[in-house]
């Protein structure tokens, strides 16, 4: 194994640590390998001297303090003292999210109500046209029926538009939910 491969594997083995910690440790081992090589060891021998990645990660665990992490009481105090700030921020963020959600559905609902209006115009046009025609007003009656048919035709187009809009809205909400979930999961991994 050459130095590059070794350092790559080491980086992978240390991936549970913070980024700064990984960089520092990797540069430490890089310096060690370079110094061994400067003393006349081959690259292979220098890496053997350092040990395997497994040995290194095991050593890190063994060297880690067995004392459990103290609860930072000042941290808790800061959270409580800062509540007027973060609480109001949290509420406003939630309010913005809620309003976005509501306006999305408002758009969908208004599209469907256009569809509903067209449908009722169709029915009303046919009905009133028939009444007009029956009472002797032939020409306005025919015009009413025609208008009703036009509404019916438009409603077919609007129906497909409404369907697509509803589908899109559902998809958008699903995606937003997923990205929030994966973000919080990532954060949890980083904090661990």
């Amino acid at each position, binding site marked *: 194994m050459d130095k590059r491969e070794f350092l790559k594997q080491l980086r992978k083995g240390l991936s549970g640590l913070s980024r700064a910690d990984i960089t520092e*440790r990797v*540069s*430490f*081992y*890089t*310096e*060690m390998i*370079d*110094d*061994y090589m*400067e*003393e006349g060891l081959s690259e292979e021998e220098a890496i053997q001297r*350092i*040990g395997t990645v497994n*040995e*290194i990660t095991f*050593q*890190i665990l063994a*060297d880690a303090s067995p004392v459990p992490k103290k609860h930072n009481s000042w941290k808790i105090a800061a959270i409580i003292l800062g509540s007027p700030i973060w609480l109001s921020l949290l509420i406003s963020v939630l309010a913005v999210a809620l309003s976005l959600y509501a306006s999305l559905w408002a758009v969908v609902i208004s599209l469907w109500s256009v569809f509903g209006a067209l449908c009722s115009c169709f029915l009303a046009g046919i009905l009133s046209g028939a009444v007009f025609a029956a009472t002797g007003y032939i020409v306005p009656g025919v015009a009413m029926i025609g208008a009703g048919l036009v509404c019916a035709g438009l409603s077919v187009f609007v129906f497909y538009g409404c369907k697509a809009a509803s589908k899109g809205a559902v998809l958008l909400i699903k995606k937003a939910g997923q990205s929030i979930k994966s973000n919080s999961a990532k954060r949890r991994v980083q904090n661990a």
Partner: protein
Amino acid sequence: MDIQLKRGLLDICVLAAIKDGDSYGYKIIRDMKPYIALSESTLYTILKRLEMADMLTVRTTEHDGRLRKYYHITKKGLQRIENFKREWNEILSIYRFVTKEDAKNG
């Protein structure tokens, strides 16, 4: 050896290795080798701990077109070595007390 005791002793050893002049990782291990074997990973942990405790400072310099970290002992680090020397007498007398029975029997 008891892990806490060993940890404390190794800290002193590393401080002693940089006492008479700044040194770097490889040289510290090489200088300690005749007395005590130390793995690179253990050395890293010790150096980090001593840095956190303000017993040494780190400076990065260029060497042969690459970077090398030099470790410099602080006053606090020197103090730690002096304390250890004083404590050692205490440890010796504890040792004598502990092995008293053995000496009688043996």
